[in-house]
């Protein structure tokens, strides 16, 4: 195992910070007129705060936290449907830990578990498969969740289940894709974005070309970035350089992990198992065309929506957001977490109204956990 210490080298970080400052000055970025850079991925948001980059970086750079946390963008209706599945007596519901605390309209999975639902945290969909093998008299449902990063592993589990002919394993598929919501944000006339930090782990699967439209059609720079502090700083510098040169393009800072054309094995598994849904609802963004995946008819036996008659199989359910909860505005970068009237008052990690405060990749959780909010207020 190789560790990350070289990407946290203070000397390198200082050199990058001063290069960023020089570049920011050169393009006239100031606190009053900042360059807005959106980091799409929640993992980047957390790195920014975990390493205090928000306070170290030039005051003319403003990070806008994007919709790249798959738990945060899940509408409450889908969380409710998870809980309904989990509460069926024959079901063992399996999920990544992230999703346990996310509030639905009545409760979260963690509360449903306390109420008696058989909900198990797993680290991989293959763990859910193993549970299905060991419990042939129960229905094991896996909560398939996440962007292109986690989509292939769910696909592999479905392919494996099909090979074994397992009859008691299904996936509640909530896999979503990154390029479409970025397009939705760029089409929004109120968004004032100057550039993007692209998601590293998603790009490891899909490569960098799905983002070509950002530079070609919208004229904005995008740099696919790693998650270490120097990765992020170098990516900011690359975005600023593109702005200075007036030549927007897609660049790959995370070349040690991200192949330009993605991972062919993962892409083949995705292509085999899923097809695009006509549209999918996103919390804060509404319905976005072709932004979600469903299981292809060939694998219908493994689709929990079909098997249990829930979700899009029977029609979309309208569940309004909690009154006063501004998750949607935070996720689209319209306001900072601290500008939400509920932040730190009605909404804390213990009393979360929305997913952004409890997901490990949520922007509000990052502000709260690492004190961006509280130390900025001083």
């Amino acid at each position, binding site marked *: 195992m190789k560790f990350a210490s070289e990407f946290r080298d*203070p000397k390198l970080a200082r050199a990058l910070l001063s290069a960023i400052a020089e570049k920011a000055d050169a393009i006239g970025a100031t606190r009053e007129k900042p360059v807005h850079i959106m980091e799409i991925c929640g993992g980047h948001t957390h790195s920014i705060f*975990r*390493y*205090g980059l928000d306070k170290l970086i030039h005051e003319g750079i403003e990070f806008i936290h994007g919709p790249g946390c798959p738990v945060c963008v899940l509408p409450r209706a889908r969380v409710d449907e998870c809980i309904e599945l989990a509460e069926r007596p024959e079901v063992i519901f399996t999920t990544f830990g992230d999703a346990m605390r996310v509030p639905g309209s009545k409760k979260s999975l963690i509360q449903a578990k306390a109420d008696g639902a058989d909900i198990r945290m797993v680290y991989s969909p293959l763990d859910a498969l193993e549970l299905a093998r060991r419990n042939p008299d129960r229905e094991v449902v896996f909560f398939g969740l996440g962007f292109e990063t986690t989509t292939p592993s769910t696909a592999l589990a479905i392919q494996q289940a099909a090979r074994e002919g397992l009859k008691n394993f299904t996936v509640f598929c909530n896999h979503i894709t990154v390029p479409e919501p970025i397009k939705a944000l760029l089409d929004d006339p109120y968004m004032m974005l100057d550039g993007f930090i692209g998601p590293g782990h998603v790009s490891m699967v899909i490569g960098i070309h799905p983002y070509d439209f950002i530079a070609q059609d919208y004229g904005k720079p995008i740099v696919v970035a790693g998650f270490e502090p120097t990765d992020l700083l170098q990516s900011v510098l690359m975005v600023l350089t593109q702005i200075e040169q007036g030549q927007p393009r897609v660049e790959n800072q995370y070349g040690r992990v991200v192949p330009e054309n993605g991972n062919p094995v993962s892409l083949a598994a995705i292509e085999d198992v899923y097809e695009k849904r006509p549209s999918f609802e996103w919390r804060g963004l509404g319905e976005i065309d072709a932004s979600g995946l469903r299981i292809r008819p060939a694998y219908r036996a493994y689709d929990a929506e079909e098997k249990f008659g829930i979700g899009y199989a029977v029609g979309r359910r309208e569940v309004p957001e909690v009154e006063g909860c501004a998750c949607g505005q935070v996720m689209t970068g319209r306001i900072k977490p601290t500008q939400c009237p509920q932040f730190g008052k009605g909404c804390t990690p213990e009393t979360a109204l929305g997913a952004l405060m409890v997901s490990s990749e949520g922007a509000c959780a990052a502000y709260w956990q690492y*004190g961006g909010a509280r130390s900025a207020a001083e």
Partner: protein
Amino acid sequence: MALRGERVTLAHGGGGRAMRDLIEEIFTSAFAPPGMEDQARLMTDALREPGARLAFTTDGFVVTPMEFPGGDIGKLAICGTVNDLAVGGAKPLWLSAAFVIEEGTEFALLRRIVATMAHEAEAAGVRIVTGDTKVVERGACDGVFITTSGIGVIPASRDMAASHVRAGDVAIVNGVLGDHGATILAARGDLALSSAIESDCAALGHLMEAALTAAPQARAARDLTRGGLASALNEIAEEAGCGIVIEEDALPLRAEVVGMCEILGLDPLYLANEGRLVLFAPEEQAEAALAAMQALPEGKGAAIIGRAVADHAGQVRMRTAFGGTRIVDMLVGEQLPRIC
């Protein structure tokens, strides 16, 4: 050998001969409490000192798996209670041990757990003087649950409390952080991670005694169990009404633990430890306390990690390796592994 079969049955909790056999063959023969009746009657010279005080603590132990690299539930039950007493400045003396045993538990497992407990108690200089056993139906508990209570004596000269920590005091930990939490995660076997990490589980009575001899004015100590270093520091900051700053560079962390945390999206500062403590000592005594700890096996990796400060009262902050600062908050609920 009157115990028959290989496993505990409900009859072993029924109050009759089978229960007596279980208690005598597995528990009292290992713990050898003096004149076993339903209570222990205790005497020690330490209590004769004018101003000496009793310390009393209790803790329940539940862990899956019950045996793991570096220890088992029995070792945890002894060390946990000894450490609760030790960090309050008490010399741990006597323990009780109550067992809730699931029907079907193997006698061999019980014997191993009890042997560990007897060994750890002897090494820590404490005696198990009373106890209890209950057998519950299969499914009513997960294997074996153990509750230990402990009594110790605090010498008159000592008065440790989190509220005594003052700005300028130095924070010392006795070794690498997070090994126990990481070991249990890996030992559960659902991570598909192989790891050579062992639990840090250890009794810290002797270490505290050495540290307090070297630094008699030490203000407070906490063992870093659930919630890890981050939670302990937050509690101290809150009770002392001062701020705490720790240095990321100075934190003793094993590369394997950091790596595992990276993969799972966990923070090692919140991982549980079972043989680690943080001690706050006035600056002029800090080096002596550090050296005293480092001289003992359970303090070999001891390090100064930060200090109490006058500003941002009640808050813990970390200076990151390249000069950023972030708040180290209390953990909410349990750390949950992330999606990607």
